[in-house]
């Protein structure tokens, strides 16, 4: 029996890429089918409540909605191969042109919220873990719990009431692109980012706390302290990287949640982001836009999960595959 030959590294990467592409293809079909299955009809929405059935039928024909679904899917998929997401039924514009500027807004919002959540959650969770047998540690845990219990749209409303309306520190809502200057851009993002990250911080803090508790039980942590590091030093030098594995997993997992949360925050703060685009497109049954945005989200989540998988090896050398190395 010949020994099984393990795949070489480039081949494994290729295999991974293959799986990714296959997932995207399957996802595109699913996205298309779900979007098509949504009840309601864009022509009716465009023409409004007064429209005659003939007018609606004519518009449907104009949009190509009368063709059978495999044909429509085929056309859409062929476009995808050329990075063409089709044209919005409502505006006639290429979907990609509508999506790209909004992608920026949402990426900033979600990205910064994630960063802020990490900045808050990591110290808070560690504190809650290290001091878990003390009142202050319990308080830190409780604080993170409270963050979970407040709906983010109320947090957004409250934040804009207090910091924009009462104190006038930040604009109540709206967005200016980074190209208009860092200051205005940042000022407009502060409140939405804070409101969006609150729930995330709470969730993350819980994971950081339990990951930290794990580390506190680890032998290498004790070794570090026996070598002369103080509690916090040992945790930072030897705990952080070890914890990062589980935290990164959660960060990857939370990203989809964050995107969903962004839909609400974008409404509360009147930000022209993807979430609102999707919400409007769904409401108006602009299926091309719905398909485009959802596919984009699916690809993003798949890509992020793939990145998370790959980052494991970066964070934990045990998971690296090395030439001539066992495990």
């Amino acid at each position, binding site marked *: 029996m010949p020994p099984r030959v393990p795949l070489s590294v480039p081949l494994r990467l290729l295999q991974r890429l293959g799986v990714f592409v296959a997932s995207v293809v*399957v*996802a595109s079909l699913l996205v298309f089918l779900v979007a098509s299955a949504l009840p309601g009809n864009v022509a009716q929405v465009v023409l409004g409540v007064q429209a005659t059935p003939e007018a609606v039928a004519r518009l449907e024909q104009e949009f190509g909605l009368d063709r059978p679904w495999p044909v429509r899917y085929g056309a859409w998929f062929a476009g995808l191969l050329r990075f063409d997401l089709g044209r919005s039924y409502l505006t006639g514009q290429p979907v990609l042109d509508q999506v790209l500027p909004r992608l920026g807004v949402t990426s900033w919002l979600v990205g910064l919220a994630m960063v802020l959540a990490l900045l808050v959650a990591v110290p808070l969770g560690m504190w809650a873990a290290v001091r878990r047998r003390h009142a202050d540690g319990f308080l830190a845990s409780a604080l993170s719990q*409270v963050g979970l*219990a407040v709906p983010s749209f109320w947090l957004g*409303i409250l934040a804009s009431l207090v910091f924009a309306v009462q104190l006038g520190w930040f604009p109540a809502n709206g967005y200016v692109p980074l190209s208009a200057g860092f200051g205005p851009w940042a000022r407009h993002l502060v409140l939405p980012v804070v409101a969006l990250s609150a729930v995330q911080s709470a*969730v993350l803090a819980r994971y950081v706390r339990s990951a930290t508790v794990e580390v506190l039980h680890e032998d290498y942590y004790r070794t570090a302290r026996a070598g002369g590091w103080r509690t916090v030093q040992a945790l930072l030098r030897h705990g952080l990287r070890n914890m990062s594995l589980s935290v990164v997993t959660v960060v990857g997992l939370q990203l989809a949640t964050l995107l969903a949360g962004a839909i609400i925050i974008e409404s509360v703060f009147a930000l022209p982001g993807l979430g609102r685009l999707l919400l409007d497109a769904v409401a108006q049954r602009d299926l091309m836009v719905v398909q485009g945005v959802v596919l984009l989200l699916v690809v*993003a*989540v798949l890509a992020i*999960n793939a990145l998370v998988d790959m980052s494991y090896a970066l964070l934990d050398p045990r998971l690296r595959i090395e030439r001539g190395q066992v495990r």
Partner: protein
Amino acid sequence: MKRAALVIGLVLVAGTVLTALLSLAWTPYDPLAVVPANRLMGPGPGHWLGTDGYGIDLLSRIMVGARIAVLVGVVAVAIAALVGVPLGILAGTAAKAERWPRLVADVVMRGNDILYAFPAMLLAILLAAVLGGSTATAMIAIGVANIPPFLRVARAATLQVSVSDFVTAARGAGIGRFGIAVRHVLPNIAPVVAVQASLAFGMSILSEAALSYLGLSTPLPTPTWGRMLNEAQPYAWSDPLLAVWPGLAIGLAVLGFNLLGDGLRDLLDPRLRESVQ
């Protein structure tokens, strides 16, 4: 402090559940009857929490809302867990297996990723078209949307458990894959799943609020906490208490379930059991 979490959690959860049960038999006022003369009364002896813009007693509405909250939370989490956990265990155990099961596991995981990226709202709209906007619609949509995290968490925990010696020992004892999954993997991943469930419970209540806003959940006029929050929004300036009560109710229930989850995890942790032996 660990016990404190469990006890507080239990008290809050029991409070919510009992309120829900009580509301089936008794509420101080009819939670649906509009009484124009009583609009926007503050808290007082007649109406402990005051009345809303229709003159309906807020306490009665909060009590009825507990019903939907508990129902949606429990059912959605149950759906997510009942689908996600077995699939997660499947994916976790198959990851180490021969080619075919591994392929199945891969497909499950990729499908999971795709589902994860899918906005729950779309599912809800689709369901609403079939079932009509109802509590069931919301429960199913939220439940399905919650499958991916359960699946992932269960899979990761399964991977850990399935390399442990006692699983190998069980195989040596002639226990098949299914027996191992049910008898060894499931009990040992239970703590992680409990935590995930408590997190998901809180999120479900909040998601229901969002779906009811779009008319995709419990139909009018049944008061839900989410709907009460939404209806309170225009009164944010003039009568902020309208938002405070349902907000508080959601907060306490979510807090209760999270604390309960934490407490359960600690209770189920053999490491901790050992030290109090």
